[in-house]
């Protein structure tokens, strides 16, 4: 048996998950935040959470619950997500659950390239974990961030290369046969607007065959350090 975390009634009410009558009467057994930390490893390639979490490929996830979708200042969201936020989408248990089940079905043009989590228990666990960093965001536990594990250690001079965006645009034409220029993702991940560092690390990981995709390994194999930097510079600029 997983040790269940109790979702405090007051929170359940504020999240609009269940009617006030029932919520007041009973606490709801929900997910296991410890197990959720494991599930979060899938997310951690793109999202940071915890002390000092920063926006990266995706926005940081502190204070997520109760936040209007697409509204966290400083992060450049897909048009679709920003529009849904403007239309009133607020992240709560119900909406987050739907989003992580099949991201594209809630927000069709999202850049979040994630197929979703089918298993209800895993989603509950993940949400219980995420909630820790929202419940009272000021109180984020003094644990190390669950954030990014380092995929490939690259020398600083490689990370510091300044890409030539015009060359990047030409090279990018090879990418755009499959990846959507408008950033939407459907079967093939979105690659627009990534922080250059993440883009560079990902491409080096393919080039060193640490990431497993055969098409991407082939594409990366013939890119020089400068060309990877050029691509990162170009894709960052795309809207």
């Amino acid at each position: 048996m997983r040790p269940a975390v109790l979702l405090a009634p007051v929170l359940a009410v504020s999240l609009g998950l269940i009617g006030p009558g029932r919520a007041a009467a009973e606490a709801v057994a929900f997910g296991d935040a410890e197990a959720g930390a494991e599930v979060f490893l899938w997310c951690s390639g793109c999202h940071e959470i915890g002390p000092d979490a920063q926006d990266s490929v995706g926005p940081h996830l502190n204070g997520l619950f109760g936040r209007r979708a697409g509204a966290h200042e400083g992060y450049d969201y897909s048009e679709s997500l920003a529009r849904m936020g403007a239309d009133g989408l607020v992240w709560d248990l119900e909406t987050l659950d739907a989003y992580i089940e099949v991201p594209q079905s809630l927000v069709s043009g999202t850049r979040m390239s994630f197929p979703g989590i089918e298993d209800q228990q895993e989603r509950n666990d993940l949400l219980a974990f995420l909630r820790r960093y929202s419940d009272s965001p000021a109180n984020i536990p003094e644990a190390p961030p669950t954030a990014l594990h380092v995929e490939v250690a690259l020398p600083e001079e490689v990370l510091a290369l300044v890409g030539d965006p015009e060359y990047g645009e030409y090279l990018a034409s090879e990418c755009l046969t499959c990846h959507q220029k408008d950033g939407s993702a459907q079967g093939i991940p979105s690659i627009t607007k990534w922080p250059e560092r993440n883009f560079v690390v990902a491409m080096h990981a393919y080039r060193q065959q640490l990431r497993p995709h055969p098409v991407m390994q082939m594409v990366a194999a013939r890119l020089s350090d400068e060309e990877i930097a050029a691509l990162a510079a170009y894709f960052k600029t795309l809207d």
Partner: protein
Amino acid sequence: MALNRRVFMGTAGAAMLAAPMLRAAGHGKPKVLVIGGGAGGATCARYLAKDSDGALDVTLVEPTRTYYTCFFSNLYLGGFREYESLGHSYGKLASEYGINVIHDWATGVDRDAKTVTLAGGSTLSYDVLVLSPGIDFVEGSVPGWDITAQNAMPHAYKGGSQTQLLKAQIEAMPEGGVFAMVAPPNPYRCPPGPYERISMVAHHLKTNNPTAKILVVDPKEKFSKQGLFEEGWQAHYAGMVTRIGPDFGGENVEVRPDAMEVVIDGEVNKVDVCNVIPAQKAGLICAAAGLTDGNWAPVAPDTMQSRMDENVYILGDASAQGDMPKSGFSANSQAKVAANAIRGALTGSRVFPARYSNTCWSLIAPEDGVKVGASYEPTPEKIASVSSFISQTGEDAALRKTTYEESLGWYAGITADMFG
């Protein structure tokens, strides 16, 4: 002018690139005329217009108003795709990219005058001509079949109504009937295409007409992704598909469209549907322009320029370039290299080294997708394969499903890259 008619070679081209630029400067914006609005032509026109910021006058000549992709047409036969989802209009190329789209048919090229005549009677002039007309069929390659037999025995190897006709015929097959395919000899467009088609027809029949049979008559010893297809046919459609290769008379075939008969090595087979995919050659306009050598139009590997005329670029299926398969992915890849080279030659913009790639996905059964791909670079002789990969037999269902989903993403990506 006789100088550049026959002997033009790739390396000479580099030295001559500056010439059209100077010439075009004399009479306003340089004109690029693109014939054929498919995977090669639409992509090339779009990149030229998009990247030149109005510095080029780009015209696209294409007879049809809606381009129906051949890619994914097999999925339509299998019931995985609506016909309408294969259609793409040229609207955005005109309205958003400022391309002059003319719906007409090019009938002739005068390479000395640098003009193209259209079936509608007009004549267009160019500084650079791009030909991406796809394929036509080699007459007499399947005895008993010619283009007038295409209603009785469809090829369905060009996009559009032929595909619908073939689907209607498959759906009308009697219970326990026979679907036959005469497969083409190399080289032809989309090497796995006929075999993906067999898979999709088998899926349809398994669901709707399970006692029906499929007969493939094939002049080739081997075919693309053979191990993967045969494994899939065994797993999903056991006992349904029979392939007769050259050892058993597969290259000695004759068809009788009136009687719906296929004669294999002298033996007469009565069939209910017969999909004849003949031997192929470059779209007719290439030969009309005098740019073919044998069935195809040779090009310089670093630019896609015709080996016979430096003012003409030939893309996609029609070109003889080396190792790249004739695919939509390849045509799209070649188009971007050519657009970069053309823009450089006509406007002085930066020209980057040629890079080509291709990946072809095929669907064998629901959510059972496979892929094959390679990357390519120009050598003086040809576009040469530098590395490649292929799906493995025995992969698990989850990986095959991801591969299929990837193909959906690719379709959305390439069609957006072609039509904006």
